[in-house]
């Protein structure tokens, strides 16, 4: 378990991270979100022991990152922002170095390096210098060093940044595959990624935790959650709209878009947890109005994210 306790970091007068506390269990993939400059990278750097917090500490699987730093760091795999790798080495030699410094030697070391190269699809560039590789490959090399020693805890700072859609997909698959036995914290700007990968998401803004929830839970915070979006065609839409508004359990109806004889309505229920789609559809068909499209809005993470981090 990763236990972040009252982590605070002050740079001069600027409070970059302000009393952040949370935990991440094994089996969990924790998405770490926030606008640029919110303190994501600073928090991750403190979790990995790169620099000491002004106040607070982090416990990595029982080892304190400050007082038992080496033990704690040994359990972590870390992918820093922008995936730095030494440019003047071959991929194979670099991973060999990582394996050695992590305490592997002999055949165990060779096996580790070979396995990791295969796993990250790097076997083909094993003898290539890092500075001749494309951004995507460099990212994968850096990712490879973070999982090489099969760490219990993975800290990934924007692991899919700069990758093409296929590579993003691969990295996400890898993260999901590994999550069963590890606790993974990763930061990202891509909210879809949170949806497809994370079991929990933490949003930070101005150095504070402003939300800590599952992706579904976050979505439920959207003002649009549970609303029915209905597109109807025909002339009699005005009447249909009035009758919907009069139905039981409906809070309000608004027109999203009206284009000739096509009208899109958004119907807000009194209680987002109780579906009103059935009743709405029944009412509309009774009126003889054609239904083009209907769906129940789950809420979009982007909206929630914007609302939480900017208050708008």
């Amino acid at each position, binding site marked *: 378990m990763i236990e972040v306790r009252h982590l605070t970091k002050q740079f001069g007068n600027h409070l970059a991270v302000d009393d952040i506390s949370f935990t991440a269990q094994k089996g969990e993939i924790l998405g770490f979100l926030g606008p640029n400059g919110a303190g994501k990278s600073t928090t991750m*750097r403190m979790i990995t022991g790169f620099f000491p917090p002004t106040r607070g500490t982090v416990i990595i699987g029982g080892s304190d990152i400050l007082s038992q730093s*080496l033990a704690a760091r040994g359990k*972590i795999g870390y992918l820093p922002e922008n995936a*730095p790798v*030494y440019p003047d*080495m071959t991929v194979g030699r670099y991973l060999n*170095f990582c394996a050695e410094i992590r305490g592997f030697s002999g055949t165990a070391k060779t096996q580790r390096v070979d396995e990791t190269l295969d796993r990250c699809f790097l076997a083909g560039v094993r003898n290539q210098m890092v500075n001749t590789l494309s951004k995507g490959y460099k990212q994968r090399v850096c990712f490879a060093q973070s999982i090489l020693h099969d760490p219990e805890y993975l800290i990934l700072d924007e692991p899919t940044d700069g990758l093409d859609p296929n590579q993003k997909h691969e990295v996400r698959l890898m993260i999901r595959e590994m999550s069963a036995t590890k606790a993974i914290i990763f930061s990202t700007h891509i909210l879809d990624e949170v949806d497809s990968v994370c079991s929990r998401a933490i949003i930070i803004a101005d150095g504070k935790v402003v939300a800590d929830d599952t992706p579904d839970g976050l979505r439920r915070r959207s003002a649009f959650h549970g609303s029915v979006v209905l597109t109807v065609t025909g002339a009699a839409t005005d009447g249909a709209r009035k009758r919907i508004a009069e139905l039981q359990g409906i809070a309000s109806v608004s027109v999203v878009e009206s284009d000739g004889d096509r009208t899109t309505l958004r119907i807000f229920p009194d209680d987002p947890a109780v579906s009103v789609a059935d009743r709405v559809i029944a009412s509309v068909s009774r009126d003889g109005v054609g239904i083009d499209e209907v769906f129940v809005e789950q809420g979009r993470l982007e909206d929630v994210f914007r609302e939480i981090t900017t208050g708008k």
Partner: protein
Amino acid sequence: MQNGNFLRNIWIIMKREFAGYFGSPVAYVFIVIFLLLTGFFTFYISNFFEAGQADLKGFFQWHPWLFMFLVPAVAMRLWAEERRLGTIELLLTLPVTVTDVVLGKFLAAWCFIGIALALTFPLVLTVVYLGNPDLGVIFCAYLGSFLMAGTFLSVGSMTSALTRSQVVSFILAVVACLFLILAGFAPVTAVLSGWAPMWLVDLVSSTSVLSHFASIARGVLDVRDLLYYLSVMIFMIFVNGVILQNRESA
């Protein structure tokens, strides 16, 4: 921290540094320039052949001045480059201590300069062929030169940790090395001895690599000279570690 781990970590870091040196043109450029410059100064400025003496004084006397520029050029990338690339973040989050890393990097660079120094061996062969030199003196001078290079390197490594700009690191290190040389340079001490008490002149000149190098290069292996070099190196490496541990940014 057990001893075995400590030495093992230092050794692994040294190996990686070496791979980095020889994986880029840095190593080759440095060695070639060093050999060309020492050759030029020895043969054309010191007139090695015309001097008619079977010793390497004309070779070693240039070392403080050459190292003043060349050693900071090796040292400047030690930390500034890691900071610029961001690799320092990986290096310092590995399960190794700052001491391991600082010593590993320092020793790798020092060995590298040692290799460049050892490649001047044809000069030794030449004097042995031409005359009957005192090999003990030559050995001492090599040792003194190596220690001086290490001293400059420790200064450069420290200034490199201060900044992410290699240029700034280089200039700071050159100035610091220049100071270490000039404090014992005859024209400077002459100016001082005009008005300052003798003990002050001695104190200033004793902080200089030049005076310590001169006595070793004459073949006098004094413990005080060795202590001087080692204490400057240890102090600078210690400061280097402190700077790294207290850094507030990548």
